[in-house]
């Protein structure tokens, strides 16, 4: 019988884990469940719903640090940060609508567990780079803490890094502490229209190689421009976008520099604050692929200069559409649901040539059950990952099989 356990606090969560260990029965760890379909489907008779582990522990703007219970809604924390003109600089995306759910529901623990990162990844890193410390329950039914609340800390192993991006397979997070940073005073986007993918990647590389502090670089090919839903972009013309953030005089200065730098690639336009925010939110939340929910969505992380080559290689062999973030290093790819094995062989072959990995983000359970959702690892690395799981969760209590079979 399926049991839905809903602990009221961290102490009860600890009890729940102890019970599962004593029964040797696996648990599916759930906050608000917005990313429940991310990963391999796995067998867990019991759900551990930690959504009541919610609430701020402390927020000290001058110290650039915030701590909250793991299932605190991200939106709540972002509103609080906004009041203090601060932010999570890694710009967590919201996959709610992409995965068929609502926007604005995810929890901070979910963000950390999936190591999310938005367009600012190129400058500010991912969740793992801002995750300073945590309290958690181990696979041995012990409450433990890891990391700390200060930015500079090399005391012992950096366990928070290991837990970030482990999709709840190594421990149950109950409280997380993150670094926060000042929000930019202003934002403007430099736009060049009508570039092909390969030229766009070169333009983005030029921007990222400049000293003008690019806060994001994305390219939306012509066919997807309309799907971004920003009026200024129109539809049917490719858009290559460079985001500038910071103080007014600095943005003005850098915008001028880019106008000169990009002369020769086409006319340079600008998106001011409001359309800029809408554009980057759409890029971040994969808005071009929210419609047509039957299409399978892949996320590819590749060396940025390889972006156009990888996408072209895949598109020549599969019915697929792609757009680029992270200067070409992140490819969002939608493929026709009828392709064989979700297209994984073609996609991974294309990625494999230059190094990188591909993750199947949106697909029905049956597809995710038969395809490798996460990129298959070399034998020595796969063995090491399995031993890490064994060391942290020997009874396979936490989300077993969500990342790899048996892990």
């Amino acid at each position, binding site marked *: 019988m399926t049991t839905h356990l809903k602990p009221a606090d961290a102490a009860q969560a600890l009890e*729940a884990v102890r019970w599962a260990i004593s029964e040797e029965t696996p648990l599916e760890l759930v906050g608000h469940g917005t990313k429940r379909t991310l990963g391999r489907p796995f067998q867990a008779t019991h759900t551990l719903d930690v959504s009541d582990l919610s609430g701020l522990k402390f927020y000290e703007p001058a110290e650039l640090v915030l701590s909250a219970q793991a299932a605190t809604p991200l939106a709540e924390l972002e509103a609080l940060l906004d009041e203090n003109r601060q932010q999570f600089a890694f710009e967590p995306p919201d996959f709610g609508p992409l995965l068929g759910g609502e926007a604005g529901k995810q929890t901070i623990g979910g963000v950390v567990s999936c190591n999310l990162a938005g367009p600012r990844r190129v400058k500010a890193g991912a969740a793992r780079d801002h995750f300073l410390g945590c309290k958690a329950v181990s696979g041995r039914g012990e409450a433990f803490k890891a990391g700390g609340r200060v*930015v500079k800390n090399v005391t*012992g192993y950096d*366990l928070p890094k290991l837990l970030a991006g482990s999709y709840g397979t190594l421990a149950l997070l109950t409280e997380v502490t993150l670094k926060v940073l000042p929000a930019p005073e202003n934002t403007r986007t430099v736009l060049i229209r009508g570039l092909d993918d390969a030229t766009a990647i070169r333009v983005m590389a030029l921007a990222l190689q400049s000293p003008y502090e690019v806060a994001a670089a994305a390219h939306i090919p012509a066919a997807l421009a309309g799907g971004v839903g920003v009026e200024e972009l129109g539809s049917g013309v490719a858009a290559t976008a460079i985001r500038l953030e910071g103080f007014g005089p600095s943005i003005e*200065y850098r915008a001028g520099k880019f106008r000169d730098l990009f002369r020769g690639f086409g006319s340079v336009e600008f998106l001011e604050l409001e359309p800029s925010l809408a554009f980057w939110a759409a890029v971040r939340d994969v808005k071009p692929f929210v419609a047509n929910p039957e299409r399978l969505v892949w996320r590819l992380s590749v060396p940025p200069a390889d972006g156009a080559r990888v996408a072209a290689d895949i598109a020549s062999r599969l019915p697929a559409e792609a757009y680029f973030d992270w200067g070409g290093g992140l490819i969002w790819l939608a493929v026709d649901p009828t392709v064989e094995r979700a297209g994984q062989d073609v996609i991974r072959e294309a990625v494999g040539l*230059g*190094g990188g990995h591909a993750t199947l983000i949106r697909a029905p359970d049956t597809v995710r059950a038969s395809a490798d959702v996460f990129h298959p690892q070399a034998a020595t690395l796969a063995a090491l990952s399995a031993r890490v799981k064994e060391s942290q969760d*020997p009874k396979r209590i936490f989300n077993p099989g969500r990342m790899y079979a048996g892990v």
Partner: protein
Amino acid sequence: MKMPTPDASVLARRVEIANALRAIVPGEGVIVEQDEMRVYETDALTAYRQLPMIVVLPKTTEQVSQVLKYCNEIGIKVVPRGAGTSLSGGALPLADGIILGLGKFNKIMDIDYGNRTVTVQPGVTNLGITNAVAHEGFYYAPDPSSQIACTIGGNIAENSGGVHCLKYGLTTNNVLGIEMVLMNGDVVRLGGKHLDSDGYDLLGIMTGSEGLLGVVTEVTVRILKKPETLRAVLIGFPSSETGGDCVAAIIAAGIIPGGMEMMDKPAIHAAEEFVHAGYPLDVEAILIVELDGPEAEVDHLIGEVETIARKCGAVSIRVSSSEDERMVFWAGRKAAFPAVGRISPDYLCMDGTIPRKELPLVLNRMAEMSERHGLRVANVFHAGDGNLHPLILYDANKPGELQAAEDFGADILKLCVEVGGVLTGEHGVGVEKRDLMIHQFTETDMNQQQRVKCAFDPDGLLNPGKVFPQLHRCAELGRMHIHRGQLPFPDLPRF
């Protein structure tokens, strides 16, 4: 500091082991002569010395793999070593262990401006990476003070920082990929030129693992374009409190400077006498705020910082008007350690991190401790991120002073933990702070960390005796303490 007891049976087989290692690393790559091994007996924590059993200097990943596999099979301890600049004794040898020196891994393998990465062997120095790309205007951001000598492999082991990490991050935020060899000889590649590695973040756990998990044989880092402009402001304050308030006010204004360094009165005086940087001598603290970036931004922010400093009660403000002047501002800060070395026969450099708001309390308590221990202390401080470097002045030739200095240092670090900080911000635990770990972590916390080691090195042969105060066998760590039949919490709501 007690190190693991040498294994007599291993020592008895020294000749046989050396011969086996020579079969793997031919020529002069295996050192057994005491005189030749002397250079390896300590690192930058010179208070501790120990000759290793044998030194091996492999040249290839394959050799590293074979050496580790051999040592794993017959149970020999291995201490990896880069340039030996660790301030915490991370590369301190073991009497019955081999030193695995990576000095011959000194090649730059790939420079890729299109992807903004550099791939090097681990023995390349931190500054060597920047030097390789400087002609194109690029650099590698983390800049520990030892950057001229320390290796990138060692930087990964220690997760090294520097004065620019508030804005640009530590080593862990700037490494994209590594190749490493596990104790069983397995060669594992993590990450690459793409921005995030797949699967578990093993790159994250390797970085800062102090040579206990694996031996790094190749490193890919991201490089950045040099900022267009760098300018610095030198600000004097009537008290450390006002200086601390000013740091908080700068951050509250949304400004993240490239560097923000504070020095207290004893450090200011020592530095000024040494390098004549023109520091004000009638103040209790100085703050150097460095702003970098596009010209227009730096000019704008310099004005903002000046205004903030004035409001905070600064008694002197100087803005660098040339690159030479900026370098002079830094000269005193960068020479602070040798400057203190001139006014005292010996000094201990501590490395705690605290929440910044606790600075006045910590400085006051440190002054009390200074009196109690009868030793002077000078402070330099990465003010932006709360990383303190108290320098404890002592004379090793005076009986009892080394012990007093170590006790004083331990008291400071315990205080850092007490106010919500940590034992070490960038120097590592090593042997130096190993026995203080119990003040920051419970046994459960530490066991959870040590279990990670069981996945990498189940027999505990890689750099044992560092970081953790107690060595546990993996079998012991693996035990479960849960018994069947516990009541599944009747008051737990279910649906």
